[in-house]
């Protein structure tokens, strides 16, 4: 095998492909193969063992889990280099010709949660239009296209929007008080679970496909509001208008500074044992996070990646081949 073999997250895929293409053009090594298939599947293959018939790099739109590190170690994949490449912004957008929105997490909680707090009691969500949710909004039917449960974005959406809304409306406290459980922790968990259980009457539609599917749904139902990646939105500004969250317009800058709350870090993981064995592996890893690629003016940022303010640290870590567990 001559080429670097990469697999994993479909969120990271566009960035990885931009890098791989440039890498192939500028180095004598062949263009790396970047497979998609999801973070989980990528890490799974990554942890299958070391050797030429396994992949060298796993892309992930989340941090590798402890359980996975353990599974890796059992298969002989011990030294893993973790590389954070930047952040993925998550935005809410609706049809370009429809009305615009300025959301707070509370709005989303009130719109989608299975039960909401009314007069101190949790009742089945009665809201039918956005006007029911927030008097400032138009009386547009509620229809949200949110990431399906397979997507990591869903977790971010639940944590940073729904749960935040749940707490803000006070529903969380009510739920916590009512929650059953042996320990505080268990109660907390039960309350969180209740917060994030979404209504199933068709108002909230899980999208298991990609953002293109979300876009297609909005095109066929103009009332719909969808959840997108920032990069996707930026390429489709002719069809979508973005909503603000707590008053902040999402952009690479506002996310990088942390003003815009909904985002998640993106990573890739390198099998240290393959460095030196697979030609070009280390060069690829270094190239990925080089300033001219992943820096603020690099092509990745141009495409929509929120570049990592701590990129320099990452660069040294990669240069030193610092493995997981040694420096974190």
């Amino acid at each position, binding site marked *: 095998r001559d080429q670097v073999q990469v697999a994993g997250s479909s969120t990271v895929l566009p960035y990885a492909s931009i890098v791989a293409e440039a890498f192939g053009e500028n180095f004598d090594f062949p263009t790396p193969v970047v497979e998609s298939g999801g973070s989980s599947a990528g890490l799974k293959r990554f942890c299958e063992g070391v*050797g030429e018939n396994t992949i060298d790099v796993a892309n992930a739109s989340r941090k590798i889990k402890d359980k996975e590190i353990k599974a890796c170690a059992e298969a002989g994949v011990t030294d893993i280099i973790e590389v954070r490449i930047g952040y993925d912004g998550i935005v809410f957008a609706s049809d370009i010709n429809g009305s615009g929105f300025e959301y707070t997490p509370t709005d989303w909680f009130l719109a989608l949660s299975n039960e909401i707090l009314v007069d101190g009691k949790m009742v089945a969500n009665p809201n039918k239009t956005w006007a029911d949710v927030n008097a400032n909004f138009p009386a547009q039917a509620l229809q949200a296209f949110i990431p399906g449960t397979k997507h990591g974005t869903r977790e971010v959406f639940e944590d940073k929007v729904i749960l935040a809304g749940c707490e803000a409306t006070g529903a969380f406290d009510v739920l916590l008080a009512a929650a059953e459980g042996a320990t505080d922790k268990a109660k907390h968990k039960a309350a969180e679970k209740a917060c994030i259980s979404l209504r199933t009457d*068709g108002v909230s539609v899980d999208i298991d496909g990609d953002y293109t599917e979300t876009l297609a749904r909005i095109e066929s139902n103009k009332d719909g509001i969808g959840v997108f990646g920032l990069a996707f939105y930026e390429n489709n500004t002719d069809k979508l208008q973005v909503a603000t969250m707590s008053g902040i317009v999402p952009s690479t800058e506002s996310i990088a500074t942390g003003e815009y709350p909904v985002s998640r870090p993106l990573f890739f993981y390198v099998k240290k044992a393959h460095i030196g064995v697979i030609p070009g592996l280390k060069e690829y890893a270094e190239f990925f996070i080089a300033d001219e690629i992943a820096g603020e003016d690099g092509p990745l940022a141009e495409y929509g990646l929120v570049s990592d303010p701590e990129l320099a640290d990452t660069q040294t870590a990669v240069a030193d081949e610092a493995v997981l567990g040694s420096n974190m």
Partner: protein
Amino acid sequence: MPLSWLVLLVLALATAGYFVGRIRVLKLAGGDVRALHSLPIYYGTNVALSTAVPALVVVMVWLLVQPTLIERSVSGMIAPEMIPEGSNLNLVMSDVRRVADGLNTAIAGGAMSLAEVEAMDATVVDVRARLGELGVALGQNVRPEVLAAAKSYRSAAVTGNTLRTLIVLALAVVGFGISFSKTKPDYRARNVVERAVLALLMAAASLAILTTVGIVLSMLFETINFFGLHNWRDFFFGTTWAPNFRGDSELSILPLLWGTLYISFIALLVAVPIGLFAAIYLSEYAGPKTRAIAKPLLEILAGIPTIVYGLFALLTVGPLLVNMFGQSGSLGLGWMSGATSVLTAGIVMGIMLIPFVSSLSDDIINAVPQTMRDGSLGLGATPSETIRQVVIPAALPGIVGAILLAASRAIGETMIVVMGAGAIAKFSANPFESMTTITTRIVSQLTGDGDFASPETLVAFALGLSLFVLTLGLNVLALYIVRKYREQYE
């Protein structure tokens, strides 16, 4: 000798054997074919098979075994302490192989002589640079022990290959010789060749069993893991499907099963009548020209990528249905709220499945002998009566096969369901609601973002295996029904 040459040589020998066998037996029979037990081609084929088959089998076994053997002997040269931190023997060995390959390339290309290679010393020469010049990319500088191992790897491989060449050629020649000497007019060459062919046919049939074993094995392990993490009662008898990143998800197969059956049922409701009527029209009513054109056209439907159908469901059929059955729809019924529904996916999937039913059934119906039709028409039956009561029953096993194939495809379809039916698992009899299927859940849990050792991901395997068992049951049922109603014409 390179492998391809060896194989070609064996094949050439076999070809020669074919002609020699033919010629010899004819000569022995004094040119009189009638004096032979079998046709000359069988004698030829016998010699060819005896020459090629054992030799090629050995080549195959050799290819599987030699690397393991060499690897084992060479890896002894790499002491454990020489393996760099974090690496393992496996990786070092792949480096060794790469260097050995590089050396071979160098020798083959004439860039280095054998002696030069043998004399090369990694402490003196920069092997990586040297090989780099020859176009062999190495990831790292070559350490002396690796070079040494590579050299012995190379020489072992060369010896092995020589041995392989000799043994294989010897086998081929022996096979040739034995079968040649057996080639006499009263030798039952046909029987021998036919037995060999039968063995091949059996091997082909048993591949299906192997595949099944493979499928079960490749999923069983993870399924067991899943049931170690998740309650099996909840999986089989629970009523909710709600995976969750926080853990303790409810993962029950039942709502998915319901969706699977419901959507497949609607798909078949569309595909079977349309497909069957299309088949009937094509084979019984349409002229040869119409048939020659319409049938291949319909077959294109089976080849349009499912993503197109998915988009078609999402953008065309879904909104159309909403326009009819939705709140402000033309029928004013308000039954349907979103474009995605069981009905949307079912209809679109049904369209995709039309050719599965139509083309296969058409062939089978066409194969029913004309005398059957004549018999019925002669009694004053209309063509449609003939078709319904004589032709279709006679063609039933094939038609059921076609329908089963369509059903199978419906069960296995993902894209159309994802885009057309939505991703919500629920129990509902309302075809205007979103639902989802086992297959789509397998795909999405497998390609999702969850922890790969978590029940949310592993459930994919349990779903796959359960579906496997389930369809097995359905197939047994179908077999039983076909057996019962089969009509055999003469």
